[in-house]
Every structure is written in C-alpha cells, then in structure tokens.
C-alpha cells in the first residue's frame, strides 16, 4: 500500500485502529496538531483528495491511494499560500496552535461558505484571538505594518515566528521524534477520596512493551507544590508526585512507561489498584464544618487549619466597618458565585525528557522553564547545572501552564531508565486532572450615602482550592483588587481558601480577581439601581484616583502607584461608546434589550517576587541576539521584546535574533504570567539593549573623537556628527580592542503601576427561551504606551471572548461522586466564531507605567469586567438579577417566566421601548 502526502509517497503502514492524524505526524508532518483528538477543534485539519477533514477522526488506512495535503504542502516560508499570507498579515493567530487547521479549513472554502463564516468555521476552535483576527485573515484584511529603524515601538509589526506558524513549521513541544523514546500514561483515581491499599503491577508488567510501572512507592517521598512562583513559600507543600491517598476523581495513581502509547494504555488497564474509599466533601462551606472529612494532615505549617480544611485565610479590617454601615443611607448585600471553568488552551500539557551526558533535559509546554527547572532539581536532588528545561513554542497557556504537572513524571522516568520519555495529556486529562479556576462564592455588603459615596465595603470570600493548595493563597490575596478599586474609609475583607475533594484550582487569566470582580461589580450595579444613580456615575464617584493609596487588605507602605486617571478615562470612553450605539433595534419581538458595564483594576506585576534577566549581544554577523527566558504562547511578548530591542538599538525587528525560554541559553525568568512578560522581562530587555547601545556609541565616539552626545544609532551603523562608522567596522574595532558588545540586565516587578479597564455590553434576552445575544461589546483599557497596537487589540478581544465563554456557556458539570461529566470540547463549550461579537477596543491616552518605555501588559485584566458587565446588562434587560454564573438559558428562563406572569412590563428603559 502507498500513502501520498504532499505529493510524496510513503510505504509505511498505519496500525489497524490508527487515525490519520498520528499517522501523518509519524511521517514527520508535525503541522497536523492535536487539540481535542475528537473532531471538535479542527486543529488537525488536512485535505483528503482536496476535501478538508478532521484527521483525528479519520481512519488512517482510508488515505491509501488518495492524495493527502497538510499545512506543509500548500506553502512554505518565502512561498506562502495566499491564505497563509492572509493569516500572517491579519494577523489571524496568537499562540498559533489552531492556525494550521484554520488555514487548511479556510483555504478550502467555497464562495458560499465565505458568506456564512459562522457555519463554515464552527468546526475550528481558537482560544486566543476572539476570532476577529481570524475573520480578517479569511477576508484578506491586513493589520500589520513595517517598522522603520529605531521606530519599532508603537508599530503593529508581526510576530517573529509568523512565517513558521502559518506554514506549520513552528515547533511545539510534541513536534519532534527521538529515537528510542518511551511513552508514559497514567492511571487516574475513580474515587474522590480514598486510601490506596495495594497496587498489583504484575499484569501490567506482563504486557509486551511495558518497561516500568511507577507507584507512590517509586517516587521521591518529597512534598512540593505544583504552582509556579519564584518564592515557593507562597504555596503549600502538599503534593507528592504520586501519593498513597487520592483526594479527587482523576488524581494520578500509577504511571506506566512503555515502548508505545498502545502498550502503556494496555498496561494502565491491567494495573490492579485496591482502594479503601473514605468520605469525601465537595463544598467548601461543608468542608469547614466540624466533623467534615479531613483532606490533609498537619505536616505542613502553611495550612492554617487542617482539621477544618482551611488552607489559608485572610481577615483584614480597615477603619470601622460598623460605623461605616451606621452612616450609610443605603445598604446592599448579595452573594455571588463563580463556577469551575478551565483554560482550554488548544495544546494540551506535555513534556519530553532525556539524558544527555548525565544531564536531565526537559522539553516542555510551560509558562516558566526556570521555575520548572528549580522544582525538578529539588524533587530529584539534582544540582541546578544538571538540569535543563526549555520550551519551544507553546500552544496557549492562560495560567494553565504555570504549574509543574507533566515535567515531574518524564523526569522521573528518564532519570530511572536513561531513555527519552514522552508524556502527552489527552483532552480529557486536561479537564479532569489539570488545574481550573477556583470556584468562589463572595458575599458583598456595601453601604453608601444617598449621593453614592461609599461608607462601608465588606466582602466575605470562600474559595474552593480543590484537593491541593497550588495558587490557593495567592489567588485569595489577588481578590483584593476588586476591593481596592473603590475608595472607602471602612473596609473589611474575610477570605478562606478551602480544601475539598475536587480537582485543584490554579492560575487562570484574571488570577483570583475575576470572581471577586464579578461579585463587587455586580453589587455596585445593584447599589446604583437602589440609589437611582447611573452605574458609571456611581463608579466615577468612588474609584481610586491619582494620589490615592490602593487599599485592599492593609493600610501601609506599598509599591503600587497611580499617576494618571486611567480608570476614569476608561469609564468615559465606554460611556460615550454605549451612548453612541444606543439606537440599535432589538432582534425581534420577544426580545428584551439591556445594557451593562463593569470596571476592574489590576496591578502590572504580581506582589510576589518576579525577576527576569535579558542578554543582548551584537554578533559577528551584525545581528543583535536577544536572549530572554520568556516563553511565547500567544501573549505576544516575543514580538514586544524584539520591538523594544530594535527601538533602542536604532534598528528594525528583522535584525534582532530572539533566543528564548531555555535555561541553558537564557538567564533566569520567573515566567510569563501576571502580565509580567512585558512589564518585568520587557524592562530587562530595555536595559540590556540600552547597555549595548551605549557601549557601541561610546566606542564609536571615542574612535572618532566626538562627544558621545553627538552620536546616534542607525540601522547598520553609528552616526557621529558628520562622520559615520558601520556596525561591521565597529565590530572589527571592538574585536581588535578586546571589547564585546554584550550586556546582561535584570529587572524586578517593583515598583508597580495599575492597569484599568471598563467593559460595556448591550444584549438582547429572549423572554421565553432565556437565550442571550450580544448586540454590542466595547472595552476601554489603559495600556499606557502601546508597543504593538495590533497585539493589544488582539489580546483584549481574546480576553473578552474567553470571558464571554466563562460567563455564558462554560461550566464543569460534576456528578454526585465528584466526577466531571463533560470532559471534552463537545460538551464543555468554549466559544466558536458564531458565539463571539466583535468588540470595540478603545485605548485611553496615558503614560502611567513603570514598564519598559511606559508600557504595561493588558492581556490578563481584560477578562475581569466581562462577567459582571454581562450580568448587569441581563438585569437591565429583564429586571431580574442573576448572581450565579454561568448565565446559560436554562438558568435564566425560569425566572423570566415568573416575570412574565407577575410583572408583564419590566421596569426598565429598554423594555419600555420594546413594549411601545
């Protein structure tokens, strides 16, 4: 039999049950991606005799004698297919993991399909872009610009890897093959809480190809935290690589290592585990009650109250809360809850480890190779120089990869066997074993004077950290952002992070601020209604302003400074935009229309330690090499770092060669999270580039005998007054004098600024079915100085889209025994193209930042105001307040129908217009 791929014949034979996706990858076509492995996401799209198909659900043998075309077959860097060029130039990607599938789908569209993109694109999921960029790409709209030398900042230049991404050449973690590589698969706990009585490996080890079966007895008995922070003391050491107690359905129990995935899977099925099931608790309030099942012992002093499963608690009181309520004219109190949701980055977790000259090498999908390296060194008692961790391009993160949950097992197996080891998560494992957002329930009590001035601000937050405490404490602290946004002399914040027998929470875009933002911004909207004050006006009267201290939990020295009135400007921009678009008619009879807004503020770097180092070197090839630890997973920091370096060195991005995310080749970097990739690592890049620039100028000035102030950088040389030296001459001169144009600089996440934003929605709600349609979406953000306008727009659009998913459709459905019943992208519904409106992205004019060139990251905080703005719009449309997410039709309709009977005409402006 013969298989023809991209015009080339192959004699290899697929296995009987093999799908075309893995067969094509085994032949070296790594552009064919796995997002879901189930026909839902489209990342694996290829053409079979010219027809696009999902290769993951196509039996491989059916390609026999037919022509298969993959992303690599339609174009290459320098010879792009028109659709590849359109995706590059729109740009129509961020992380780039869905891109090959998007291109292979779009490039096959008929004209009729192009007219109906919601239908045509429904088999392709993108988690990063919010689809506007993809729509532009399909329609051939370009958004990129070329930077003049020294003018890269402020220009929408393309991502350094763009050509590789759109041609399927960009390497992600799994896009490689190592001879002799073993595969690791995991047995998961079927019980929410159980002790392991015994594990019989015999039958598993008898499976041909199975090499090892690892249990809790085979791993270093060291507790650690999977959470990634520079300071590991901010998280509890409560996790073993493999444990003899399981605390949630899905927890790893056994790891099977085999020659093939097939043998490893069979080995997993043959492992005989005997469990002693013990009582489980799923609700954090129940877990805190006397007599509740206890998840963890008293071995970790971090845990505040192990008997009551309280991992961490915060109690702060500023001013006099009782006095504040006593002087209030109006008091509003409500309880708001946010459910468990997931990142659903298109690339699943995965790592490959091998030994090289006695050193452990780990290639992984992580947001921080530096911290992952430190954890592996600790777990396996290795010197830091014995470990290398690096990332190729990463297919989306959103905080999900701020966690060491695949590197440990491959390291264990590679150190044990000396052979290369691969561990790749399935999509189901993403949902049932990787981290999620912490479900939080917040009770917000606000007191205000009749003019809207807040007199008392009280919040009780109960966060469900799940079975382990990774990020449990830090997310609880972060929730203070929703309290610090408003000035109020009397504040009280009580918060609990509680262990339960559920999947652990973790870091997710918004990081503990999203849930409190939903609560506080909903409560402010309700307060505004009670006071008969416009919700935006109520905010204007209470928001923090320049010169105010940001007071959340303590009133003392701090490193966050507000220098400009960014939040007020955001509010004004959204107010104008909402007023301007106020005249759109409802979609038809039966629809209620309403508008809602919400705001948030976000510190530009985390309060914990965040450090980054950058190296800049002018090479003999006259290219500047920029080495920085930051990983690229679609957040766009690589583009920004290159722009900053080019800007300072007077050159263009094409002359900057980026080396990144490799502990052997770059300096330390805490990681790309908390928007610190730009704010912290960008500052390191700026300083290193400035240092190299200054060295070059100093040498040129000295050589030409001119004052330094007379000299400036050009793209290929230095100009000093009316004299000029080329970079080639300067490099030769430097070499002769033993000088090197190279510099390393570190940056630190302090002092910090704030990013602020405001979101507005106008929605229609069907009064019978409960369906919500978004008619208009706008977000204003204070990005200060913008490095790359197209990227800023794309990040906000993507964050709003993800926020819409978290608000309107996404939810972990969990059964009575604690097992998730929808662990796939077919039933856990992240937004498709059809679900997402275009969002107007408005930038305030500001330079309020301690970031590089007064820039700051905006990719994280944009998600925070989305849910409350939608809930507030829903209230405005229907007169009914919904205080629990998600806002799905089946949760909405019943209360609307009560309204239809009791209250035929809702008392709100939009509905009155409708009923005329």
């Amino acid at each position: 039999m013969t298989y023809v791929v991209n015009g080339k014949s192959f004699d290899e034979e697929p296995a009987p049950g093999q799908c075309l996706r893995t067969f094509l990858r085994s032949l070296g076509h790594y552009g064919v991606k796995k997002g879901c492995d189930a026909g839902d996401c489209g990342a694996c799209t290829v053409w079979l005799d010219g027809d696009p198909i999902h290769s993951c659900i196509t039996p491989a043998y059916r390609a026999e004698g037919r022509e298969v075309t993959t992303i690599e077959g339609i174009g290459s860097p320098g010879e792009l297919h028109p659709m590849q060029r359109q995706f590059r130039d729109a740009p129509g990607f961020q992380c780039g993991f869905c891109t090959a599938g998007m291109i292979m789908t779009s490039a096959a569209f008929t004209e009729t399909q192009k007219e109906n993109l919601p239908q045509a694109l429904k088999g392709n999921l993108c988690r990063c872009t919010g689809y506007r960029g993809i729509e532009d790409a399909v329609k051939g709209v370009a958004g990129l610009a070329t930077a003049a030398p020294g003018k890269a900042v402020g220009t929408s230049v393309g991502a350094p890897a763009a050509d590789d991404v759109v041609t399927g050449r960009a390497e992600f973690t799994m896009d490689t093959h190592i001879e002799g590589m073993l595969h690791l698969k995991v047995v998961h706990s079927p019980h929410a809480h159980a002790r392991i009585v015994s594990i019989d490996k015999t039958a598993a080890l008898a499976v041909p190809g199975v090499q090892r079966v690892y249990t809790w007895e085979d791993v270093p008995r060291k507790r650690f935290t999977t959470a990634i922070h520079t300071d590991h003391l901010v998280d509890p050491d409560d996790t073993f690589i493999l444990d003899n107690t399981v605390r949630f359905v899905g927890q790893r129990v056994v790891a099977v290592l085999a020659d093939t995935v097939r043998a490893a899977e069979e080995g997993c099925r043959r492992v005989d585990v005997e469990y002693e099931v013990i009582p489980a608790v799923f609700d954090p309030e129940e877990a805190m009650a006397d007599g509740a099942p206890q998840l963890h012992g008293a071995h970790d002093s971090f845990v505040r109250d192990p008997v009551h499963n309280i991992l961490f608690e915060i109690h702060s009181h500023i001013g006099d809360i009782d006095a504040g309520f006593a002087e209030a004219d109006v008091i509003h109190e409500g309880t708001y809850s946010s459910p468990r949701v997931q990142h659903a980055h298109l690339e699943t977790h995965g790592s490959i480890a091998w030994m090289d000259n006695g050193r452990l090498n780990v290639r992984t999908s992580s947001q921080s190779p530096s911290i992952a390296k430190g954890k592996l060194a600790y777990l396996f008692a290795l010197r830091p120089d014995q470990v290398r961790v690096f990332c190729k391009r990463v297919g989306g993160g959103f905080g999900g990869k701020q966690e060491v949950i695949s590197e440990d097992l491959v390291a264990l197996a590679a150190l044990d066997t000396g052979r290369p080891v691969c561990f790749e998560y399935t999509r189901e494992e993403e949902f049932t074993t990787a981290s999620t957002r912490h479900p939080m329930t917040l009770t917000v009590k606000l007191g205000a004077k009749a003019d809207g001035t807040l007199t008392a601000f009280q919040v009780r937050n109960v966060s469900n950290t799940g079975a382990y405490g990774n990020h449990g404490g830090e997310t609880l602290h972060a929730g203070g952002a929703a309290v610090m946004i408003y000035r109020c002399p009397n504040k009280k914040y009580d918060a609990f992070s509680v262990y339960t027998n559920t999947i652990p929470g973790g870091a997710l875009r918004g990081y503990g601020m999203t849930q409190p933002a939903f609560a506080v911004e909903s409560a402010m909207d309700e307060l505004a209604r009670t006071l008969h004050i416009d919700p935006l006006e109520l905010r204007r009267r209470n928001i923090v302003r320049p010169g105010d201290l940001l007071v959340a939990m303590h009133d003392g020295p701090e490193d966050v400074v507000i220098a400009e009135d960014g939040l007020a400007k955001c509010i004004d921009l959204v107010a104008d935009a909402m007023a301007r678009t106020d005249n759109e008619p409802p979609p038809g009879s039966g629809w209620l229309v309403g508008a809602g807004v919400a705001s948030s503020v976000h510190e530009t770097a985390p309060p914990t330690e965040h450090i980054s180092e950058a190296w800049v070197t002018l090479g003999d090839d006259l290219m500047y090499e920029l080495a920085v630890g930051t990983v690229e997973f679609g957040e766009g920091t690589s583009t920004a770092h290159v722009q900053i370096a080019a800007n300072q060195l007077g050159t263009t991005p094409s002359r900057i060669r980026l080396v990144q995310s490799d502990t052997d080749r770059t300096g330390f970097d805490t990681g790309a999270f908390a928007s610190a990739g730009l704010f912290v690592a960008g500052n390191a890049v700026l300083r290193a580039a400035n240092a190299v620039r200054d060295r070059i100028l100093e040498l040129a000035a000295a050589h030409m005998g001119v004052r330094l102030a007379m000299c400036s950088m050009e793209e290929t040389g230095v100009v000093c007054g009316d004299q000029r030296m080329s970079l080639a001459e300067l490099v030769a001169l430097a070499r002769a004098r033993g000088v090197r144009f190279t510099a390393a600089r570190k940056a630190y996440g302090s002092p910090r600024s704030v990013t602020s934003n405001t979101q507005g929605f106008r929605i229609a709600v069907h009064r019978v079915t409960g369906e919500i349609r978004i008619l208009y979406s706008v977000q204003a953000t204070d990005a200060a100085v913008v490095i790359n306008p197209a990227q800023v727009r794309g990040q906000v659009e993507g964050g709003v889209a993800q926020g819409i998913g978290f608000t309107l459709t996404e939810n972990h459905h969990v059964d009575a025994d604690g097992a998730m019943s929808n662990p796939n992208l077919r039933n856990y519904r992240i937004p498709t193209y059809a679900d997402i409106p275009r969002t107007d992205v408005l930038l305030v004019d500001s330079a309020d930042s301690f970031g590089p060139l007064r820039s700051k990251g905006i990719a994280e905080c944009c998600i925070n105001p989305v849910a409350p703005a939608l809930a507030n719009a829903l209230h405005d449309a229907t007169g009914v307040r919904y205080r629990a997410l998600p806002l799905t039709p089946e949760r909405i309709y019943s209360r609307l129908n009560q309204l239809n009977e009791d209250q035929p005409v809702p008392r709100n402006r939009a509905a009155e217009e409708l009923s005329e």
Partner: protein
Amino acid sequence: MDLNTITEVVRRPSGRPGADWREGDTWLAGGTWLFSTEQPSLRRLIDLTALHWDPLVPSDAGLEIGATCTIRDLYAFARPGVGIAGTLFTKSCEAFLSSFKVWNSATVGGNICLSLPAGPMITLTVALEATYELWAPDGSARTVDALDFVTGDNQNILTPGEILRRIDIPARALRKRAAHRRFTLTRLGRSTVFLIGTQTPGASDLVLTVTAGTTRPVRIAFDTMPDARTLQQSIDVIPEEVWFADPNGTPDHRRHLTKHFAEEIRRELMAGGPA
C-alpha cells in the same frame, strides 16, 4: 484518536456481512464518532463503506437512503423545490454540532445508530415517517418504523451484529408541509430541542416530532389541528423520565422550550406558512 485496542480492520467485507460477527466487533461507517472517543472494548472494525451502497435513490415510492450515505451527499441532494426535502434536509444537516468537514465522512446511518437524543438524522427520518431496513447476521432482514428504533440515550433496538441497511422515506411524507424549530445553548451548538411538525397538503392534520429534548423521539399525531391547550396537554403527558438531562439542556428547560416551539409550529402550519 488512535483506537489502540483495534487489532484488525475488515476493509472489504462480503456483500452480506455479519456471518462471523463476534464480541469486540463493530461496524465502521464514517468513523467520525467511533474515532472521537476511547473504545477499549473493541477489537475489530468492519468497514461498511466498502459495500458502496447507493446513497440516494429517489423514486415514485419516495426516497431510499443507503445507510452509508454521507451527510455531505444528503446536504447536496437537498435542493430547494424537492418537496419539503429542500428545507428539512438542509436544516437537519445544519443541525449537526459537527462541521462541514465531518459531513464529508459522517453518514446518515451512523448518526441514527449512535442514537443520541440530538441526532438530527433521527429527527428527520422520524418526522418523515421513514422505515428502516435492518439486516441480521443470519441473513434475515426486518423493517421497522423509524419511531421505534431509538429506545433511549445511545440505545436502540439493534441486536449484536445487526446492520441498518437503508432508510425509506415514503413519497406521501415528502409531499407534506412542514415547520421546524430548534434551540441550542450556544449559537450553533448541539440541539437542546429539535421539533418538526408536518401536515398533509389540503388537510388539517398535524404530526409533531419531538427530539433532542427527549431521550427518544416522541411523535404526537392529530387528525385535525389541535387547539393550543390540547397541544400543550399532549406534551405535558410525555413521561417525566423521557425528558433528557445532559450538558446541552435540563429536563425542565427542554419541556418548556418544546411547549413554546410546538405552539409556534402549530401557528405556522395553521397560517399556511412556509411549505
């Protein structure tokens, strides 16, 4: 995904397959569902597409659809003007959660045999009063009413080794007037409810097919168009346990939507709405 327990594929089965049916066997048509989830109990795939059954055979008697007819072929066949087929066939194909790329492989019979409540080919064929021809491994055949085929969520009357060979839609059904309503929790998501009402031309009857919201299709037939109250009551008597609970909808909401859309269908057909 790779189905790693599969050890054999029968790529060219005999014209009347099933004689050597054994445990661990499964029929393979498009494979789009089969390959979308783990199948640890399966060992052998028997490829029915190799039999090249005629996909679509229109005749005076009606329309015969081979079970391995792809959704793409059905969608292409469904031109406006071919009786009500033009609208209902198109809408039923578009009711798939899956993309047009899946339609290139997925089959009508595969969707019916998967027997999910939201299977739009079930909705379509029950509404059009189709019969199914089933082939048993012993060489015998039987014909069943489409309504009786699906018995619950992912459950049907097929015995081990039995094959759905063909779907026959009678010409009289193809000539009927029809109205349909569908609701999904996401914009183009999987059906929460999918209802089709049909009416004989020149008559005032109503056949209402309720699917997706129920674990099996429910058909409610009236010789003359019922009043609103009667129609609502006919839905109220659907047993509690038939309303389906899954991530695509709750039983309460599904009953509520069904009653709402049933009334819309009634009004549309009474008003002589779209044929």
